[in-house]
């Protein structure tokens, strides 16, 4: 399997361009985040959204009152015409941000596909490619969230920030030239196990960010002088909580599936399905933490802030598993490391 240098070069080019476009999109979203309060009020208003929001919250009395349905807008004073003009301009920036993000995703996808074509294998055989794929899933997940909750569009800047950082780190420090994978990775389980890990890890980024924003907003609400600049522009806690929960609930079974496939592969490759290899261990820890998150959301006294902390910890474990275990400790998984 010779490596096609030209395709590989095109892939690198797409990757870099996608990263730049995300940075540009961030600028647009930052403008909306900073100036566009009323834009959110309006998107929160349609009845459909109201129904959607209240439908879910039967167990949570707070969401039954219409006031809390006006997402993040309960604190917005009536607008002067001038303010309305600023916010509608801000909303335009937000929409352009989304358009740019979609363009970024297309280039990002192209970078991944070209890598695969260049090496004639699935494009997640080393850490650089793995991170590229995880970031792609994170952005796609966010775009899906935006379709369901248009009112959180201005938060895109907070989601794109870690994505851009990861892409930058991946493209500079972890970059690996396109090459075939070693015998141990030549298995169809590479396709199944790793893609499940990629999809779930990428999805987990979104609740991770939403939970951090929840904690910021929460701090601000209990003490308005804290995070006043940022938090005042964030949506209400219940929206952030719901974005986290819904995404986690989808990602968690996929993650479980990924761990399960990992065990099946380990049985075929290493002679045992579970051996407490560092990567397996941290995957287990992250799994238990996300399970604790789901339990916390069903336990009185643990909803809200504790649950958000747990979710953030879960994502921290996922990231820790990616970086620390691949780069610092030596385990059976280490060959997935830096090319």
């Amino acid at each position, binding site marked *: 399997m010779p490596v096609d240098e030209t395709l590989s070069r095109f892939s690198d080019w797409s990757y870099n361009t996608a990263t730049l476009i995300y940075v540009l999109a961030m600028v647009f979203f930052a403008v909306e985040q900073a100036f566009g309060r009323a834009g959110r009020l309006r998107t929160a208003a349609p009845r*459909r959204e109201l129904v959607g929001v209240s439908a*879910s919250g039967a167990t949570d009395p707070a969401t*039954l009152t219409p006031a809390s349905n006006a997402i993040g807008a309960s604190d917005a004073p009536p607008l002067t015409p001038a303010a309305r003009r600023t916010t509608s301009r801000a909303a335009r920036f937000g929409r352009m941000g989304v358009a740019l993000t979609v363009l970024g995703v297309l280039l990002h996808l192209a970078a991944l596909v070209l890598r695969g074509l260049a090496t004639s294998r699935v494009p997640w055989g080393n850490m650089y490619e793995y991170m590229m794929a995880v970031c792609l899933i994170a952005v796609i997940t966010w775009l899906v969230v935006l379709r369901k909750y248009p009112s959180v569009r201005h938060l895109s800047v907070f989601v794109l920030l870690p994505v851009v950082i990861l892409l930058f780190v991946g493209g500079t420090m972890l970059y690996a030239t396109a090459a*075939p994978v070693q015998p141990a990775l030549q298995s169809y389980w590479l396709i199944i196990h790793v893609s499940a890990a990629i999809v779930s890890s990428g999805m987990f980024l979104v609740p991770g960010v939403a939970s951090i924003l929840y904690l910021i907003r929460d701090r601000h609400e209990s003490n308005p002088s804290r995070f006043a600049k940022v938090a005042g522009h964030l949506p209400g806690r219940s929206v952030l909580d719901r974005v986290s929960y819904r995404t986690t609930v989808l990602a968690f079974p996929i993650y*479980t599936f990924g761990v399960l496939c990992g065990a099946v592969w380990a049985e075929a490759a290493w002679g045992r399905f579970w051996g407490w*290899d560092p990567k397996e*261990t941290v995957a287990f*820890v992250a799994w238990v933490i996300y399970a*604790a998150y789901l339990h916390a959301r069903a336990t009185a006294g643990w909803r809200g802030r504790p649950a958000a902390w747990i979710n953030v910890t879960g994502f921290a474990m996922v990231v820790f598993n990616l970086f620390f275990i691949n780069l610092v400790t030596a385990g059976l998984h280490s060959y997935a490391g830096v090319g």
Partner: protein
Amino acid sequence: MTEQEQQPYRATPARRALAFVRNTWRGLTSMRTALILLFLLALAAMPGAMLPQRSLNEPKVQQYIAEHGWWGELLDDLGFFAVYGSVWFSAIYLLLMISLVGCLVPRSGEYVRSMRARPVLTPRNLSRLPHHATGAVASDADDVLAAARSRLKGWRSSERDEGEGVRSISAEKGYLRETGNLLFHFAMLGLIVAFAIGKMFSYEGQVIVHADGSEFCNSGIYAYDSFNPGLRVDGTGLNPFCVRVNDFQPTYTDIGQPLQYRADLEYSSGAELASNTWRPYQLAVNEPLRTAGDRVYLLGHGFAPVFTVTFPNGEKRTQATQWRPADQTTLLSDGATKFDPPGITDSEKRRENQLAITGLFAPTPVFHGKILSSGGPRLTDPAVAVDVMKGDLGIDSGYGQSIFSIDQSQVEKGALERVARENLRVGESVTLDDGTEISFEGVQRWVSLQVSHDPTQLWVLGFAVAMLVGLALSLLVKRRRVWVRVVPDGEGRTVVEVGGLARTDQAGYGDEFDEIAADLLNQDTRSP
């Protein structure tokens, strides 16, 4: 309170003990405790990822302890180098299991009751529900109810007459959520139990076999180079099978990156052994041989340089001892091939004349002056750089020694001396002062195999799949209710009220409810 009233409540020791047990049980099986135990489990598992573990890498554990002094020893005493067998780790997961059982028993009872129960009564005021719609339709109550019944097919529903012509349907859907949740938790319980049983009855053994038609038989612990038995395995009664390794072929890219490892096997198991029936198998990474309830894996490979020693009396001895790869990418290997002098019966004398050929082997030699290194893993005109040692190897000392090296303490004692140092290519030889000739004849390949046995792994897989299914159901199915109340207005029209409630905080019920409500309220257009 009077004396009399207090009497019956006096806490006898038995009662106090009972209360203690009950409170402990309640505490242990509460969600809070389960949550805390989950955190403890996550926390307790972490050191296993951060510190070297005995089961994975014993030398690294020793090194760590040596480097960290009292701290390393303390960690060792506390079980931090064997986390998953430690008392504290086991304690946490046992408590979690008790908590789980305590949680599951009452919930199972509740589950059975709720599966039998009729959907709850229609609330008096449907407009207070999060989803609500109302309207008047031009058909009579019977028709509306019939339409509602057929619209709510697949829902569990019950109909009630509320008097004065007012009737209602309450319907509920999404019972699979609770089913999935119980399935998940029971499967997890099963998985843990199956895992624990498997650990007791499993074994794992490693062995190096030369790829020249040599055989390995799973006949006992002695057949292995290393063997890790479970608690209930004593090495007798292993599943009988034999493996013969005929050849090993790696393929590489131009720059020496491995593409594929394949070992050419024949195997014979169980009754076939008696009839000497052998079947071929291509053993590769990711493709273990599964036979006789065991699995055979290709773990690694390496080289065994072949040396022939011609002793002064003309006798020849040839040996191919495996050397171990010191560098996994270039397969530069080191080792020690040891010879006993032939024809000497006096053990004292024999020990003065033992030989060891130690040094480096390079499949693709690169010389920097006289220093040998390897340019890649492929066999291209291989070479060795050897020290020939003569004297007492210390093999008879009673201590086992590594087959890959000589006993350095014999060298330090002066019992073992270097008598030659030479770089050799295949076919070349070196002659010692006493006339002994040592020639490098060629090279053989060896593979290291692992045999694994775990009688419960399919059970574990089954439970894991059940967990996954249960999890998906319990997280993705929505439990939701809908109520329909019809009130005839006495003029041939019927007021229809619809209310809905999602019992779990899942999105998306709004759309489904709106559709149901629209179907029921737009009777006019459909019924004449």
